């Protein structure tokens, strides 16, 4: 059993986001990078599957050299080897094509990743990879069990859950509570140093989009509390200050 886990290298959720170069680039100064939280769930589930099924786990990231600590962390958590496609992840299609190219060479039984990244939150890569490989792609997967060549999954849908079954190989875009995040143990961190991390050049250069610039959402206004008996004041505020009436 061979599992590929695709991880993103994204700013920590508590980072203060600022831009440089005329608002075209993220200001990385002082920003801490982490494994995308949804990818981290996928990885955690993969580590459990590894124990159950004796699977081998490969982690993959499309990114420049600076993302290697993130890949090493995935190795520390339990992946066996890592691949870095040496390119800035320009957009979803670009990333999906790189993943598909690697997957074609290695015949993974299962490809796992987060339902979406937390930087651009596109949520498209798993679908595109499935399409490029001609295999099913299911997301957001909250539960995933493997029995023989069958995968039993639970998926979140509007207002409820959907239980479904599919055959390997497939692509799963994961989210909680598929597994609990794992903190790498010290021994894992030490062994990550000696696990293979291969760097490959991108297989294609297609990009479908171009970023013109970024804008921060407007700062949150202050909250005004109005006494529940003072409807007149509420109306006055809505009319004169908020100007919505």
């Amino acid at each position: 059993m061979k599992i590929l886990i695709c991880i993103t290298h994204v700013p920590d959720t508590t980072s203060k986001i600022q831009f440089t170069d005329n608002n075209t680039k993220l200001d990385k100064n002082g920003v801490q990078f982490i494994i995308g939280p949804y990818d981290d769930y996928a990885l955690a589930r993969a580590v459990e599957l590894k124990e159950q099924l004796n699977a081998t786990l490969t982690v993959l990231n499309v990114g420049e050299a600076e993302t290697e600590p993130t890949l090493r962390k995935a190795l520390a958590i339990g992946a066996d080897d890592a691949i870095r496609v040496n390119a800035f992840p320009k957009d979803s299609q670009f990333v999906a094509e790189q993943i598909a190219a690697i997957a074609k060479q290695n015949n993974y039984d299962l490809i796992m990743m987060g339902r979406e990244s937390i930087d651009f939150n596109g949520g498209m890569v798993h679908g595109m990879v499935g399409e490029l490989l001609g295999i099913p792609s299911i997301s957001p997967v909250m539960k995933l069990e493997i029995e023989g060549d069958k995968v039993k999954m639970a998926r979140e849908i509007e207002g409820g859950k959907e239980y479904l079954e599919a055959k390997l190989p497939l692509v799963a875009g994961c989210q909680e509570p598929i597994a609990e995040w794992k903190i790498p143990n010290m021994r894992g961190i030490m062994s990550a140093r000696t696990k293979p991390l291969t760097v490959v050049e991108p297989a294609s250069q297609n990009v479908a989009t171009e970023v013109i610039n970024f804008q921060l959402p407007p700062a949150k206004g202050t909250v005004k509390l109005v006494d529940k008996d003072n409807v007149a004041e509420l109306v006055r505020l809505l009319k004169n200050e908020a100007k919505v009436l």
Partner: protein
Amino acid sequence: MSQLTKSSINGGEFLIKETDAQDIFIFEEFNEEQKMMAQACQDFVDTEIHTRIEEIDSMKHPELVPSIFKKAGELGLLGISVPEAYGGLGMSFNTSMLIADIVGAAGSFSTTYGAHTGIGTLPILYYGNEDQKSKYLPKLATGEWAACYCLTEPDAGSDANSGKTKAVLSADGKHYIINGQKMWISNAGFADLFIVFAKIDDDKNLSAFIVEKTFGGITMNEEEKKLGIKGSSTRQVFFNDCKVPVENLLSDRGNGFKIAVNILNIGRIKLGAGVLGGCRTVASHAIKYSTERKQFGVSINTFGAIKQKLAEMAIRTYACESLCYRAGQDIEDRMQALAAEGMPDAEAKLKALEQFAIEAAIAKVHGSEVLDYVVDQGVQIYGGMGYSADAPMERAYRDARISRIYEGTNEINRMLMVGMLLKRAMKGEIALFEPAMAVANELTSVPSFESIDTSELFAAEMDVIKKLKKVFLMVGGKAAMALADKIESEQEVMMNLADIMIEIYAAESAILRTQKLVSQRGEEAAAHQIAMSKVYLFEAVGKIEQSAKEAIGAFAKGDEQKVMLMGLKRFTKSEILNTKELRRQVADYMIEKGKYPFS
């Protein structure tokens, strides 16, 4: 620049020698693997501790802390210092400092952690024979067993060697029978292994024993009701005819006090690092709260009085980081050097730690007092909410206080650092008297009017540091002469001298760290660190001047006093600094980053 090589600096010699910035280790130099370990440890603290600190401190669920402790073991956090051969990770000294640093933010759990990995485990690691090490260390390194350290007794606290607990050899010569009472024992409530100090027969000195709980004859009082670190188990432990196999004597008979002293020595520097996580967390909370809290229509962090506090929290924390990891690396380097000369590992470690015992005591005192300052200002920034048990400052404030008391009170540590220095000087191990004489001569000669080139960054500051060392040599030298063997009973003067030593080491470490940082990243990238180092030194000069004056007033009279005061004036001369502006700069950067941003 100076020609010194790194290995030429011995413990305490920072007072008479210059150090090259390139020769110290700085926090910013931890490698990717160490950073990953620190992050994993932080994740552990965030998920296992911070989410249920109230439950931990309530002590309502006796299984909770042991279960968290076991998780720490699974992650490998309990075996950082234990060699791989005994089931640990065998990481470097500074890595173990870094982990203690991060766990320091875990409130009461940091005492649980320190008592087990430090005073609980290290006696066996450093003094155990092969059988003892292979029997116990793997269990302790993985957290299968928890350890505690039983030194203090109701009538033997600071005066630890005066303990009354007795060990008597059984008739068949196979066991020691231990009887006595121990007090304030951290982890006692769930420990499987007790390191017990007792006197064999009527010995003058303590011996140390490895006692398994299952040996029998061990009972305990209820948990102590404490001011802080409430989730950490602290109990009185009674030994009633506790039968300990003779092979569980640790090291030689009568060697217990030496073990206790040397182990506390390590505990001290670890405690210095162990306050840092707490300092950063409190500072970060204070930054966030002061940004959110509005009074007079604006965030309170726009007020200069609040910025002053935020910056000062960071400045002192930065200095403490600088000195702890500088000393930590000096210890590591010495260990390596001694091991390379063929000294057995455990012995090399002990020798290196002993060599830097003065720095370890400084780290303990400085760290615990920085933490107390930081939590105090944290409460103040929170205002009324600082006083509320619903906000994090109240707990931090209570938890911090213990650090000035255990691992040797700060009074005992202050006395120790001066005592050790004088003893080494007497033995000729540190050449203190010659430079002290030179300074004494300088007092009666014409002051030199040579000016220093202040265009180079920190040239003026390094000159100030050099002169502060002269203050120490002047006051310390004269005090040693005037008071001779009476000095030990003139504790106030000893404390003044200790304060001068501490401030010199802290200020110098902060500046050296920043110098090295500038050499790596350039001045612009280190602008805030430059500001912090300058402000720290400026304050240190004031404190040192005050301590020196008090000491001079205590023992010098007439002309001698006059000459010394003139010398003091000369040696504490420094440029006026716009500390207001520099602190604002630092505070604004902290506010911009939303957390303590310097490590």
